[in-house]
C-alpha cells in the first residue's frame, strides 16, 4: 500500500514512527469553548496567506507621486507611493480588494478571538500551575497581535490611519526622559518623517510575524506537553484527560474548522466593506476628519486618551505630558497585571498545586467578579473611544457624554463586579457546586503583601 511505503521510506531516514504514534494518540477534550484558540490560530493563518499576497503589490515608500490609477475622484492627487499601491490593490488588481478586505477582517477577528480565548482561559482558571508560562506566552501573543494590527493599517498611509500614527507618535513622545529619542530613532526624525512606513512594513511582515510564529509554536507545544485542561464530569479527574484522539477525529474536525473560519473571513472580505481608504484620501498632517476612530482593539486606548482629565506633571523645567498616563501607563499596568495574574492569584489563595480540571466561572465568584469588573472598565473605555459618534448619533452634548463616561469608568466596574459575585454564588449554590478558595475581596490586599501560607 502506498501509505505504508511512504511511511517506511520516511522512518528509515527519520526513525519517527514511535514518536508519531504518541503524537497521533494525544487526547483533546471536546468542549466548544476550547475551540476559541483555534479560531485565533486559523485567522492568523488566513492573515499570513492573504498578507503574502498583498506583499506582492504593496510598495512601502513615502515618496510622493500623482495618482494615475482607475479611481476617478483621486485622479492626479498627490499621495505617497504606499497609498497609491493600496489603491491599486483595491481598484486595479483583480481580486485585490477581496484579499485586502479579507486580510483586514482577519486581523479584527484574530484580535477578537484571542480576547475571547483569553477570557475563557481566565474564567476557567486554566492559567494556574502548570500553565503559567503558557498564559504569559498567550498575553505576549495578544500584545503582538494588537501591535501588528496597528502597524498593518498604518502603512496604508491614508488620512484616518495617519491620524492614528500621529497620535501614536505623540504618545511615545510623552515618555519621560527617552520619549524624544525613541520617536526620533523610530521615525527617523520628527513626525511624519520619511522612514516610518518602510520600518513599520518590516515590523509588520517580518519581525512580528516571526515572533508570533515562534511563540505560537511554544504555545501549542506546551499545550501538547502539559495536555489540555478538561471540565470535571463522569470519568474526568485531575489525573487524566478525556476527549478524542488527535488522529483521526480531532485533526479532521479541526481542519474543518480552519476551512469554516476561512469561509467566514472570505464572506466578510467580499461582501462587508472594511477600511474604505479611497474615501479617506491620502494622509495630510494638517487635516483631520471628525469621528476618527481606530480599529476596535485600539478603542480602549483611544477612549482612555479622551477620558483622561487634563492633568500634567511639570517641575524643574521637565514635564510628564498628559497622554503618558492613558497612553503608556495604563497599557503598561494592564499588561503588567495580565502577565502577573497567575502569580498574584496563587499568592492570594495560597494555592500552589497543579490543576488540570477546568473550573466553571461560578465556582470562583471572586475571580469571576474581578474579571468582569475589569472587562467592564475596558468596555467603558472602548465605548468612550466613540463618544463623539455617540453624541452626534443621539443628539447629545459631547461634554455631557464625556462626563457620563468618566463617571461610568469609575462606577460601572464595581457595580458589575458586585452583580457578578452575587450571580456566581447564587448559581453555584443552586447547582450544588463548591465555590473555590473562599478568599474575600477584603482579604486580598493583605494576602498580596504578605503572601498566604
Amino acid at each position, binding site marked *: 500500500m502506498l501509505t505504508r511505503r511512504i511511511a517506511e521510506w520516511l522512518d528509515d531516514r527519520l526513525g519517527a514512527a514511535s514518536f508519531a504514534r504518541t503524537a497521533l494518540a494525544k487526547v483533546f477534550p471536546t468542549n466548544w469553548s476550547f475551540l476559541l484558540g483555534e479560531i485565533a490560530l486559523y485567522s492568523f493563518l488566513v492573515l499570513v496567506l492573504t498578507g503574502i499576497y498583498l506583499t506582492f503589490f504593496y510598495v512601502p515608500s513615502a515618496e510622493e507621486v500623482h495618482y494615475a490609477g482607475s479611481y476617478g475622484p483621486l485622479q492626479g492627487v498627490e499621495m505617497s507611493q504606499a497609498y497609491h499601491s493600496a489603491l491599486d490593490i483595491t481598484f486595479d488588481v483583480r481580486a485585490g480588494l477581496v484579499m485586502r478586505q479579507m486580510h483586514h477582517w482577519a486581523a479584527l477577528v484574530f484580535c477578537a478571538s484571542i480576547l475571547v480565548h483569553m477570557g475563557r482561559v481566565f474564567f476557567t482558571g486554566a492559567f494556574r500551575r502548570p500553565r503559567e508560562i503558557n498564559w504569559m506566552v498567550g498575553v505576549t501573543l495578544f500584545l503582538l497581535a494588537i501591535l501588528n494590527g496597528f502597524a498593518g493599517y498604518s502603512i496604508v498611509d491614508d488620512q484616518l490611519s495617519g491620524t492614528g500614527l500621529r497620535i501614536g507618535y505623540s504618545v511615545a513622545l510623552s515618555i519621560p526622559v527617552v520619549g524624544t529619542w525613541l520617536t526620533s530613532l523610530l521615525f527617523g526624525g520628527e513626525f511624519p518623517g520619511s522612514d516610518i512606513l518602510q520600518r513599520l512594513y518590516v515590523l509588520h511582515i517580518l519581525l512580528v510575524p516571526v515572533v508570533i510564529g515562534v511563540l505560537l509554536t511554544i504555545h501549542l507545544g506546551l499545550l501538547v506537553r502539559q495536555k489540555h485542561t478538561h471540565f470535571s464530569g463522569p470519568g474526568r479527574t485531575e489525573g487524566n484527560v478525556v476527549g478524542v484522539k488527535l488522529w483521526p477525529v480531532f485533526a479532521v474536525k479541526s481542519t474543518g474548522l480552519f476551512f469554516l473560519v476561512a469561509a467566514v473571513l472570505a464572506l466578510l472580505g467580499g461582501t462587508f466593506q472594511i477600511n474604505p481608504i479611497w474615501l479617506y484620501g491620502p494622509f495630510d498632517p494638517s487635516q483631520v476628519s471628525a469621528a476618527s476612530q481606530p480599529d476596535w482593539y485600539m478603542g480602549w486606548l483611544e477612549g482612555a486618551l479622551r477620558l483622561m482629565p487634563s492633568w500634567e506633571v511639570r517641575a524643574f523645567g521637565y*514635564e510628564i505630558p498628559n497622554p503618558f498616563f492613558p497612553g503608556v501607563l495604563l497599557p503598561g499596568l494592564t499588561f503588567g497585571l495580565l502577565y502577573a495574574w497567575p502569580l498574584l492569584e496563587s499568592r492570594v489563595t495560597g494555592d500552589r498545586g497543579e490543576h488540570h480540571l477546568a473550573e466553571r466561572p461560578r465556582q470562583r465568584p471572586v475571580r469571576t467578579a474581578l474579571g468582569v469588573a475589569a472587562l467592564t472598565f475596558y468596555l467603558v473605555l472602548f465605548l468612550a473611544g466613540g463618544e463623539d459618534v455617540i453624541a452626534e448619533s443621539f443628539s447629545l452634548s459631547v461634554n455631557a457624554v464625556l462626563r457620563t463616561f468618566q463617571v461610568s469608568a469609575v462606577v460601572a466596574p464595581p457595580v458589575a463586579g458586585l452583580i457578578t459575585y452575587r450571580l456566581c454564588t447564587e448559581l453555584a449554590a443552586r447547582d450544588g457546586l463548591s465555590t473555590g478558595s473562599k478568599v474575600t475581596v477584603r482579604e486580598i490586599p493583605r494576602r498580596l503583601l504578605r503572601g498566604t501560607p
Partner: protein
Amino acid sequence: MTSPRRAEQVAVLCFLLAILAAVGLAVVYWRGGQPQWEGVLLSLTLGGIGSGAVLWGKHLLPPGEVSEERKPLASSSEDRKKFVEELAVTPVQVGEQAGQPQPGPLRARRGLLLAASGAITALGAALLFPIRSLGPRPGGGLTRTRYADGVRRVVQQDGTPMRLADLEADSVVTVWPEGHPDDADSAALLIRLRDEQDLQPREGREDWSVEGVVAYSKLCTHVGCPVGLYQAESALLLCPCHQSTFDVLDGARPVFGPAARSLPQLPLDVDDEGYIVARGDFSSPVGPGFWDRGTEA
C-alpha cells in the same frame, strides 16, 4: 442523530458545492472579477470543504471519547540532580585541588569567567550603536518652527499670501510660513474675531494680533491632531480627535478635554504691502508635550 449514511450524503453534497463554487469563482475572475461574487464564491468553496470535513469527523469516524493518563510533569529527583550537576560550572581556584578531577564538563577560573562576561557585554553594547543611525538627535526641531527664521508672510497651502481684507469675521484659514507651505509643524490657524468679541491677550502679547485677527498653532497640544473645528459664536477651537477645546479670546487656553496647555500663539503684523506676516516663532513649542519641553503651560 444523523445516521452515517445521511452524513456521508450531505458531506458529498458539501464537497460538490465547493467544486461548483470554485468553478464559479474561476469564471467570475476570468470575466473581469467582481468583489462580492469573489467573496461569496470563495466562501462557498471554503465552507463546502469545511462543512464536509466537520461532518466527516463527527459522523463518519469511530465515535466515543477516550481517556489518556496524565503522567507527572516533573522529572524524577534523580534526573534533576544529575542535570544540575552536569550543567554546573565549577570555578577552579588557581593552585588548589590540582590533580583532582572536577565534576562537570566546564571548568573555568573566576577571573576568566568575569573577563568573558565583560567581553560579551561589551559586544552587546557595541552592537547597539548602529541603532543610533536610525534617526537624528532630537533637537531644535521640536522647539522651533520655520517661523523662527525671521519675519515671514503667512500663506495658504497653494502659496497665496493673506491680506486682512481677505478675512471676514468668523473665518478660519490654515496658513504656513511663506516658502514652506507643507511644513508639518508650522501649520497655524488665522482667525478673524467678531467686532464684539474681546480678545484678552496674554502678558507681553498685546501687539500679537492685528485688527481682530489672531493666529495660533494648529497642532493640538494633546497629541498633535490638527485642531480643525471652530465655533465662532463662542470663539472656541475644537480638536475633533479627543475634543480638546481652546478659548481663542484667552490665548487659546484649554477649557475642556484632555489638553493641558494652550495652543502656542503666533505674533502677527502687517507688512508694507499689506500682507499679514508672522514676526517670529510661536510663543512656545508647538504640538504635544515632551520631557524637556521646558517652558510654561
